[in-house]
């Protein structure tokens, strides 16, 4: 389509990229490139659950978990660091290694607050309480993998999951302007099964949550 200045551009569409490539058959080279890319974007989780021995997240029985708190994004991760985590009551039990265009995490557990990382902690006094601090960005195509690999290792009966995340106020849709809102403010979403009292109002339509917290 032509713009006001006369140049012809491809209109951005909410439908996403219209991929004619999607329908074309893959050549062996395409397949090879795609496989390599997929391998590079794989999410690896290294658990150190039993006496400091590192194990890959493949085998092993699921471990019992009663409460799982996940903090996604730098703000939520910082909240946990400032108010909850300390080296006396919590021990590191897992680390996620992944790469995408926005960030790379490593398998070291000694991280600085400014690094991108995704670590799992366990409460020493009650080993069924697990905490995850995820300050790295998990890309769209990696979110499902992250989800399956993390929750795949947990026994899901009796499990309560709490997800902490932040969104820009500008993204919040409301009748009045967002400028007048007393920011920051809390909103929640809960499943039918969550029977306890929620400490803040529920998220009103038409607002939504996306990416890893949604997954």
């Amino acid at each position, binding site marked *: *389509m032509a713009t006001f200045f006369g140049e012809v551009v491809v209109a951005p569409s909410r*439908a996403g990229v219209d991929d004619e490539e999607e329908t074309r058959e893959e050549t062996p080279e395409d397949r090879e490139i795609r496989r390599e890319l997929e391998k590079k974007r794989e999410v690896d989780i290294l658990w150190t659950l039993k006496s400091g021995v590192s194990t890959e997240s493949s085998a092993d029985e699921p471990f019992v978990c009663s409460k799982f708190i996940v903090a996604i994004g730098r703000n939520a991760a910082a909240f946990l660091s400032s108010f909850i985590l300390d080296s006396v009551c919590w021990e590191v039990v897992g680390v996620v290694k992944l790469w995408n265009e926005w960030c790379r995490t490593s398998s070291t557990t000694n991280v600085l607050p400014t690094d991108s990382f995704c670590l799992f902690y366990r409460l020493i006094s009650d080993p069924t309480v697990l905490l995850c601090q995820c300050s790295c960005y998990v890309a769209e195509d990696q979110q499902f993998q992250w989800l399956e690999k993390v929750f795949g290792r947990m026994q899901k009966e009796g499990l309560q999951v709490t997800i902490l995340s932040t969104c820009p106020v500008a993204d919040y849709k409301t009748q009045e302007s967002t*400028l007048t809102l007393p920011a920051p403010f809390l909103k929640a979403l809960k499943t039918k099964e969550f029977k306890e009292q929620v400490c803040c109002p529920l998220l009103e*339509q038409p607002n939504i949550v996306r990416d890893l917290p*949604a997954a």
Partner: protein
Amino acid sequence: LLQPAVSVGNVGQLATDLVISTLDMTKVGYFYTDCLVPMVGNNPYATAEENAMELSINAEVYSLPSKKLVVLQIRSPFIKNKYRPFCQTLLSWVKSSKCARVILLSSSHAYQRDDEQLLGTPLRYLLTPELEKAVGGLMQELNWKEMEKVAAYPGINDTEKILHIPGGGITKLLFTESCSKGIQMAVLLKFCSEGDNIPDAFALVNYLNEWLQLIKSEVNTSSQWKIPSSWRLLFGSGLPPALF
């Protein structure tokens, strides 16, 4: 089975929202899939406090047994390289659940029309050979226009024609897969551009209604469809008064 393609202007999805909302359909399930970007929110069809708290995700299935209608709503874009796996999974579900026919609501870039397409109705249909046998005659009666094919190599060789649906998302893939699998599928699409696509959604859903007669079509048909509460604030929050 009625479902949208994630396509230009999200017209198919908006039209599907109108169907679910107007017919007050019940949610019966969802797709747990890695092919769509994750999202979650509260019930988009909420009408009161009581039903506003139900969680809603990116691919959900609704049903209306009285009209033997099942609707799949898709609420987020496809993840790269996942078009084909999704289409295959969807069609195998269609076959295993013995679904009689599938209707896909879609749209295509209006700026890609040729001179002839610029005149007359912007609505088009497509039928797989299986469905052509069953309802081809009805399409003639309704005076509907079939989607034209375009030259495979324009300018070089005008004889070889292929189906081209720019901006249609998974439409072409799903249609060609259905043809090869002998599934009865119809595609209903509208030419449109990005912008306020609510009128396009109404046009598409009225087009669908000409065939399926989901609601009584009277003179002023746009007032018969119920707009869901989630359509509020489609273009963002209110404006700060200090702006003026």
